[in-house]
């Protein structure tokens, strides 16, 4: 069958995915991307040539057996396809939506060398959604109980993946979540129109099916420390996320109407402020909103502002279009929704009146010599200051390490930014039995990288708990001070 497929002429372009009309979607929180129909999924799956040396899987931080699942799609065995993905990924409907596949699996796709790569993410989403709509959830296999216990700090992508893997290996897992619902950034950070919360809830419910105990409202570092957890559990994995919002340190940043992206998104996503007053949490939007930053979170914020009713929602980013760190797809969607981009522009102060934001003063930038990140450094153009009248400013310029866990844990090595030092391959920290992964180690990254870190740590925690021999690995001390 594979031979036959190779001989067939490949369609150069991937099957387009239906999307909500940009004009309509700007005023609702429904999902932008509607997902493939069965016909479209089959059409796209046919573009996979089942190559002899598949590269795609090397690009997947959790090692999804991509070729195998796509072959099952080709055979219309959708249940088989989703079961195959779930062998390595507990969050397929999430990953199919928010993974930067263009930088991972799809970047390495052999078809992509000549044509557009196979739309792996869209196919992953299709089978995950298919199962939710049609299938009977296949019960995951759980190994015989080992009698060992593991505490997981945080129920975001890193914690959920580690919890799922460890539970399947037969360990008794308890997850401690600070907020009132599990999901971490999937819940409070990524908007409904990109990742419906019902999907997050359903995928996280799989953890409960595996026998994982999730304790909400449990702020580790406050309600209990990691040291106390180590008394009750055989191992601890810290996946608490980055979480401390950065501000620029410019005048006027504490005026009413200035939000961190975390607050703006948390009010909207977790607290459902878009449905105020049915939900109690309010949010200020105003007619004109400036979002400072150019990452995925900035795109999420600016598109959220639009949906909350802003007449004009503006990205203010200090570098040019080429340096925008957000996924191309998100930038494209933002353009389609008529988001205004003020590029090569940096805020100098927030101007207020009676305690409220009235405008943001910016300066135009030009690109100079490359900086440490290899990107050309933006330099202010003297005398180019100008004002953009706005009612709300959202600062989306990254996050720092939340100190609650690091500072309340004894003898835990931190790097100079306050992130936990952990081995990249094993998640081991300077404390025996204490592991860490995700943004609390790397700083702000992606869902799938955090999942990958959770997976790797789970593997090593298993070895540690079962007293299996150690593979040759670098120690945490050797990787110290890496960002």
């Amino acid at each position, binding site marked *: 069958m594979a031979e036959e497929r190779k001989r067939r002429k490949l369609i150069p372009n991937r099957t387009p995915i239906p999307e909500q009309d940009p004009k309509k979607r700007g005023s609702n929180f429904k999902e932008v991307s509607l997902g493939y129909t069965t016909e479209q999924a089959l059409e796209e799956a046919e573009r996979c040539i089942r190559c002899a040396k598949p590269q795609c899987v090397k690009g997947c931080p959790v090692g999804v057996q991509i070729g195998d699942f796509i072959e099952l799609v080709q055979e219309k065995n959708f249940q088989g396809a989703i079961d195959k993905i779930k062998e390595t990924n507990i969050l397929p409907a999430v990953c199919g939506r928010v993974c930067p596949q263009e930088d991972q699996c799809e970047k390495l796709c052999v078809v992509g060398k000549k044509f557009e790569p196979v739309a792996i993410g869209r196919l992953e989403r299709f089978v995950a959604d298919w199962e939710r709509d049609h299938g009977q959830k296949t019960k995951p296999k759980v190994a015989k109980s080992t009698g060992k216990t593991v505490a997981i700090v945080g129920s975001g992508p890193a914690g959920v993946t580690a919890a799922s893997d460890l539970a399947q290996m037969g360990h008794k897992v308890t997850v401690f979540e600070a907020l009132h619902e599990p999901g971490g950034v999937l819940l409070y950070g990524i908007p409904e129109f990109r990742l419906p919360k019902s999907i997050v809830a359903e995928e996280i419910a799989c953890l409960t099916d595996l026998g994982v105990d999730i304790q909400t409202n449990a*702020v580790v570092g406050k*309600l209990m420390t990691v040291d106390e957890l180590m008394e009750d559990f055989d191992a601890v994995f810290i996946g608490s996320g980055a979480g401390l*919002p950065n*501000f620029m340190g410019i005048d006027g940043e504490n005026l009413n109407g200035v939000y961190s992206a975390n607050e703006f998104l948390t009010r909207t996503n977790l607290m459902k402020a878009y449905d105020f007053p049915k939900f*109690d949490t309010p949010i200020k939007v105003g007619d004109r909103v400036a979002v400072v930053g150019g990452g995925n979170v900035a795109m999420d914020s600016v598109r959220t502002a639009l949906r909350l009713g802003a007449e004009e929602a503006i990205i203010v980013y200090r570098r040019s279009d080429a340096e925008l760190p957000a996924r191309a797809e998100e930038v494209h969607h933002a353009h389609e929704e008529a988001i205004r981009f003020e590029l090569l522009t940096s805020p100098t102060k927030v101007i207020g009146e009676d305690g409220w934001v009235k405008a943001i003063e910016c300066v135009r930038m030009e690109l100079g010599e490359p900086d440490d990140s290899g990107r050309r450094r933006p330099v202010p153009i003297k005398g180019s200051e100008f004002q953009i009248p706005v009612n709300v400013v959202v600062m989306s310029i990254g996050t720092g390490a939340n100190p609650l866990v690091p500072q309340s844990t004894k003898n835990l090595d931190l790097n100079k930014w306050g992130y936990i030092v952990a081995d990249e391959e094993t998640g081991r920290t300077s404390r025996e039995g204490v592991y860490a992964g995700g943004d609390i180690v790397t700083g702000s990254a992606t869902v799938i990288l955090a999942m990958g870190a959770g997976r790797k740590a789970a593997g090593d925690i298993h070895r540690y708990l079962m007293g299996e021999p150690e593979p040759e690995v670098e120690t945490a001390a050797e990787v110290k001070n890496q960002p």
Partner: protein
Amino acid sequence: MKSDLTKILETKLIREPDVFYFKLDAPAIARKAKPGQFVIIRLNEQGERIPLSLADINPDEGTISLIVMAVGKTTAEFVELKTGDEISDVCGPLGQPTHIEKLGKVIVSGGGFGVAPLFPIARAFKAAGNEVVCVMGARSADLLIYEDEMQTVCDRVLVTTDDGSKGTKGVVTVALEEELKKGDTDLVICVGPAIMMKFVAFTTKNYNVKTMVSLNPIMVDGSGMCGACRVSVGGETKFACTDGPEFDGHQVDWDLLMSRQQMYLSEEKESFEAWKARHAHLLETS
């Protein structure tokens, strides 16, 4: 999935018509909580997250206590809860505890229902061997709360009322100043409305007495993630939820605090009015 509801063990009307005492079954929080800390509660699935100071902590009993005054929709809903009812979410303890040590003489000063969180703080200072004086004020005698409770943990309790219906006539700073004049005060701790804390801090500054105030800005997560609770102390932006809630009162930018507290005034009013309208309807039909 939700299994961690928190049960109300006791309710008590503290002051007519709208200030209530609640004792909650929260053994894990009670075990860890220290005076000066707070919890964030969310009453139900549609609820907002609001911070409430701990009015008492009983680790042996596994309980924490809160004093709630119905000032908006959430607190109005809260005070309607009865013994045996359950709260969807109680998260804590949050914030830094009050730094308790033996100093000599400590004044705890509070206004309105802000007196309640001073109770565990005063008790801890007393237990540490300090002379503890409570200076509490209200507009009139019938609005005073927790006077008897404070008597049990303080050496002296000084009361002021604006209308002179009890104790010294005037605002709390009048009695506070009399006490400061003695020159033997080592520390003032103040909890209450921002405007009152501001004037207490102004007063103590003249006497050069260290003053810690418990700030009450708007919060969402309460664990340092959102930054809603930014306050300016000594010209630096701090997060009240993780750096505070107690700060040096002489360094606080009070105008900023009060301005930020007003951020959602119109929405809070809208939400409260809508609730009252619905509520009146419910009461009629019940």
